[in-house]
């Protein structure tokens, strides 16, 4: 085993909780990878935009996907179970994955959200994403008039 396999990193969440991860798993996050490669690593690495709850989940995903002994279908099964979370958690995970530049996690999460969105009405989309409707009555009519072809 080469020494880099055993190298560990400490990630610190925004609420100051520290997590130890293997460097080989953590570099799936390009943000962290670049820090390591540019030798800008302070120990622990502060992740100001990710809280501990979400960071724990990200690390769970990260470590699962770094395991070389698992087959792709096993990883897919894990993914399916992983995304069975409340929608708000998924959104927070997306923000974290974006911040950390963790493409694989981003992909899985975006696909899940996109699938769920397929069944929602406009009102539900607003509610789930907490989007404030700032249209006036006329604007809303105009916006709706652009789109009826999609719902025939």
């Amino acid at each position, binding site marked *: 085993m080469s020494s880099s396999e055993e190298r560990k990193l400490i990630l610190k969440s925004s609420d100051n909780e520290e997590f130890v991860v293997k460097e080989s798993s953590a570099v799936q996050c390009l943000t962290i990878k670049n820090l390591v490669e540019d030798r800008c690593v302070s120990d622990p690495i502060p992740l100001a935009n990710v809280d501990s709850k979400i960071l724990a989940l990200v690390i769970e995903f990260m470590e699962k996907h770094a395991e070389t002994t698992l087959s792709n279908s096993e990883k897919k099964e894990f993914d399916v179970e992983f995304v069975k979370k409340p929608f708000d958690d998924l959104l927070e995970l997306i923000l974290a994955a974006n911040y950390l530049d963790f493409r694989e996690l981003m992909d899985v999460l975006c696909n899940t959200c*996109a699938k769920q969105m397929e069944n929602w009405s406009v009102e539900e989309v607003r509610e789930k994403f907490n*989007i404030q409707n700032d249209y006036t009555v006329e604007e809303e009519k105009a916006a709706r008039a652009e*789109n009826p072809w999609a719902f025939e």
Partner: protein
Amino acid sequence: MEIIICGIFLTSSDLSFFIALATTLFCFIFLAVFILRSSKKPKLPSSPSELENLKPFDCACAGEKSRNRSGEEMTPGLNCGNGGGGEIGEIIVERHTGASMMEQLVPEITTHALSYLDYPSLCRLSMTNSHMRKAANDDNAWKALYHKDFTLEQDSLTPVNGWKAYYAATRAIVNTNVEFFRIITERSLPAMGQFWLNVDYVKCFHATGESFTGYNAVMESWQLAFSWENVVDFQIRDVRARVLTDMAWVTMKAYLDMETGPFNVTNVYEFHSGRWYMVHHHSSAMLIHGGGCDTRISRPIYSANSYDSCKISQ
């Protein structure tokens, strides 16, 4: 402001000079305060510097939401670092303290993020609020969706009304085309009569090689075709559509069943009175593996009797 500055230079007496200077300074301060107030963009937390360049969304404000959820009063607007389109301003939320996650991403929602959505979702998103409308109507997003759903062809095009409109038009034509085959399967002559444009220049080339010109002749040929008893079900593949303002053509391959070879089909449509009408249909059997396939089908392709049709050689 310029007037005040000019005033400073024109003034001769010391006292007036100082008054003017004081006024100018006051104006500057007032303006600065005004600008700061109206933008209300708190500084970003210091994040690893590499972040700015890397992320697909280029957004360093992930987690602003979680901080706000813990009860901070301030609702930051979209305060992502590179501020592309940063006029999005404040969004005051009644239920949660904190801007919505979508709106945090909005300025940097790239084609990548939207590319996960199907076209109804993208449309629904555009109806939620004005910011989402701008993001969801993004031309590149619709171009990518077009390439995903339809074809990679026409990549160098710049549609006159933008890619969303082009996508919508293509969707409409593809649906119309599907309708054509449904009419054949149902053998509905009235529906076929409605489907074609009632003019003398329409043409129909059946797979038998026979061709008919003019609405009446074409309708008679369909009547004959429909008189064959077998019901056929089509599988349409490789649909490629090119849509112009009032004209469109579609090429496709039609597969009937295991024994009948596929057909190359070309349909041309014209747009009149708010809908598409067929003006040209051309169908020809695809030669498979050279010899052994008799394309001289004595009956129109819409009968699926295997002994009459092309056998696919194994």
